[in-house]
């Protein structure tokens, strides 16, 4: 039952994604309102922040370790320009600080 729900979720997510993909083709040469275009430009920044924050600002014993890991991950991504560099550096620092603070 769980897998059926997950497959249905994947299909629904795929369907709305396809609508966004074909939508631009269907609109053809029509112009998007300037404000809508600006709004779309800021959607990724806003969404990624919203998806990041609850996993970092946890208000528990692990929070210092999570914030330290996040800070190092941000620097690693800026420096090396690679997503995996941020994940590896961030997890390493998170685990180190969490173990030292007995928070794991």
């Amino acid at each position, binding site marked *: 039952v*769980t*897998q059926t729900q*997950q497959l*249905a*979720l*994947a299909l629904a*997510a*795929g*369907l*709305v*994604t*396809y*609508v*966004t*993909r*074909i*939508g*631009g*083709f*269907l*609109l*053809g*040469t*029509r112009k*998007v309102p*300037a*404000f809508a*275009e*600006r709004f*779309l*430009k*800021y*959607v990724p*920044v*806003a*969404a*990624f*922040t*919203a*998806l*990041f*924050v609850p*996993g*970092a*600002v946890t208000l528990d014993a692990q929070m210092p370790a*999570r914030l330290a*890991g*996040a800070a190092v*991950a941000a620097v690693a*991504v800026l420096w090396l*320009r690679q*997503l995996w560099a*941020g*994940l590896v550096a*961030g*997890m390493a620092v*998170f*685990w180190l600080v*969490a173990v030292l603070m007995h928070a*794991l």
Partner: protein
Amino acid sequence: MRRSGYWRDVRRGLVAMVPLWPGVVPFGVAFAILARTAGFSALATQALSIFVFAGASQVATVTLYASGAGAVGIVLTVLLLNLRHLLYGLSLRPWLGARTRPPWPALAFLLTDEAYGVSIREYLDGGGSVPFFLGCGLSLFSVWQLATITGSLLGSVLPNPKGIGLDFIFALTFLALLVPLVRSWRHVVVTAVAAVAAFVLTHYFAGGVAVLLTVLIAATLGAALESAKTGADAPRESGGAA
């Protein structure tokens, strides 16, 4: 000439995406590990990569699913995250021509950030074509599926993820996606407002709804700030920044 060069252009498209693979593969592997960590079956994980074929919204789907968000909130978040495809489609459509082989509704399935970026550059440089775009899309799609399978296999041998704090990778993934996008003071303001909004809203709403409301608030603010800037020498629009 175009006809005889069809498969050569497909191959050019396939090859043109190869430099992007090192960036895409780790993301696909990371997504699949996250999905397995979140409790997705290997089949459902693969289904996401096949049907959605968009990294950030796939990670968002499994992140929100793991946090117990409802299906409607998740699907609407995916919709918001993917609305940018509209702009790519609008921009690419005139280049493709009236009739395409395969038909453009099939081509649309392969429209991604990467395929759009490489194809539009090729069109502007004079070498673009429908088969080139097809090659770009197929290149990315195949690599994405292989990366997902690899991650699924890795994810199924990992120990109890929650116990060792592996769930933190969800947050780090989005941070790593966010950081390169923050390029102006307006992005900093939008990020700060989104952070506060997300923190407050997650205490009152399910994950998917909190993300949606945060995006509506913060992206509207960003658009208003930009309108205020460009509005200095143009007629003022309604909905001021302050």
